């Protein structure tokens, strides 16, 4: 099937696919995850990314970052490791070259915001606020180490997390989704911390943490040694954590972690997601976000499901 035909099917079924994340309405529940679509230019060569529910662009920091040395990625069983190191051109360039372009082509942009201390996050948030009409939402990447607090990750300490969120929501009116790290003893505790703030919603999960070893040398394959772990292998963990978070919050949840099929999307909606993001699967198939919507419509027909919302939260009833 040609892309044009696929897009037509999606358009024809748009009344069955639209989702609400609280007050935000998206065309459909599918968006590429941060770090897995760069700033959208490449995917837009395959299909118009304005047809997506949204696009979550690469983590953006105050200053440009070079990222980590090579090797940065490695394949594992049903997944991959990455340690890119938040390479990005810095918020000024991102606004000028990417956000404005995304806005001009009609894309729904979610900007992923990262930093190394509270101030650096706040700086980015303030700049994003100046182009707020071009931005649908901010996704707050809290899996960064806080260099001011001995390198503890913001997303692993409830108090530090709340403090960071509060300082962001204080300087911007853009809805903020907090992207939870799965690498914590209690994900509920973190969700409850978010619940006490003005954050708009939650996105989850960020990568697990893993390592790969070259058996010949005995050395880590990834230059940074430790790396983020993504792909189908992390799906069971994602489903479990979203299930638990949905038990303690009514905020909108963008679910992700290993999604590569329409049935995966239905599973993520069932445990409590309101929309989903697709990360690693884009690497294997550049048109996955469109293809998966086509499959989703077919399964909805098969199961006699009129609207995608009917899948939401079924694991909890």
């Amino acid at each position: 099937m040609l892309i044009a035909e696929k897009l037509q099917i999606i358009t024809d079924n748009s009344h069955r696919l639209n989702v609400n994340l609280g007050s935000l309405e998206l065309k459909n529940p599918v968006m590429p995850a941060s770090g897995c679509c760069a700033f959208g230019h490449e995917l837009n060569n395959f299909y118009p990314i304005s047809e997506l529910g949204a696009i979550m662009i690469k983590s953006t920091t105050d200053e440009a970052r070079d990222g980590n040395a090579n090797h940065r990625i490695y394949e594992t069983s049903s997944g991959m490791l990455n340690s890119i190191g938040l390479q990005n051109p810095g918020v000024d360039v991102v606004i000028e070259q990417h956000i404005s372009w995304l806005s001009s082509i009609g894309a729904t942009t979610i900007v992923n915001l990262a930093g190394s201390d509270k101030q650096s996050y706040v700086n980015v948030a303030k700049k994003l606020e100046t182009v707020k009409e071009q931005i649908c939402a901010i996704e707050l990447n809290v899996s960064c180490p806080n260099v001011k607090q001995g390198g503890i990750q913001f997303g692993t300490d409830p108090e530090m997390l709340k403090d960071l969120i509060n300082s962001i929501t204080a300087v911007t009116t853009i809805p903020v989704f907090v992207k939870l790290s799965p690498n914590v003893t209690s994900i509920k505790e973190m969700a409850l911390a978010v619940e006490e703030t003005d954050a708009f919603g939650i996105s989850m999960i960020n990568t697990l943490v893993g390592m790969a070893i070259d058996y010949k040398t005995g050395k880590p394959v990834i230059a940074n040694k430790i790396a983020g772990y993504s792909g189908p292998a992390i799906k069971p963990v994602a489903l479990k954590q979203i299930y638990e978070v949905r038990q303690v919050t009514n905020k909108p949840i963008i679910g992700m972690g290993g999604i590569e099929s329409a049935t995966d999307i239905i599973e993520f909606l069932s445990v409590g997601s309101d929309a989903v993001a697709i990360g690693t699967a884009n690497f294997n198939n550049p048109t996955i976000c469109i293809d998966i919507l086509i499959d989703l419509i077919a399964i909805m027909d098969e199961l006699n499901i009129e609207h995608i919302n009917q899948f939401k939260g079924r694991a909890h009833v």
Partner: protein
Amino acid sequence: MEILKLNVLSHKQLAVQTFELVLQKPLHICPKPGQFAMVKVEGKFLKRPLSISDYTEETITFIYKVLGEGTKLLSESKPVEIEVLLPLGSDFERTAGHATLIAGGVGIAPMACLARELAANGATLDIHLGYQTANQVFLADKLSEYGNVTIYTEDGSCGQKGYCLPTEVAPDSVIYGCGPHPMLNAIANQYPNQGWLSTEEYMACGFGICAGCVIKLKSGLKKVCQDGPVFAKEEFEC
């Protein structure tokens, strides 16, 4: 750049651990020398980057070495159809004058179409090919149709003994290199000539969205898959 399922026309061993895979090419796909493809291996999660070794109107050829699990699986399975994403990346800018091709190991693969197109362009070719040992030699016969071939082996079992680095390169010759990183660095710094070098790095996507393949070259951070794999030789000079 397109994702396609292509029929396997042939899949055979060329030398020790070295295989040739010929796929049926749709007419509208027009690769250029130096470009590559991401090739799906059943049972592996990510696709594997392989240089386009050669092509005709209706075929596209890859030559790969069995290195790890993915290439081993590919060589052992005999798929009738393979999913590929192609053509990807930058190509070698072709001279019409004198060209010196220096390639080692599987870096020799893309020399097939490069030599053919350079020759068609009217260029004169000196071709230097490095292998580990005699039973790994491939493509040398074919390449000798387009120019003067010199073979090097590390153990001296065929051709000259030692690394594939010609003692002299004509001053006006354009260098085309492809091979392991140390070889590219040696080429970059040993000869003052202009030229083009093709490099490699681990890749997840192959088309610019993951930033997994980024390396630091003279002019800054580059995506091997998108800005490369072929870069101007001076990018590697130090």
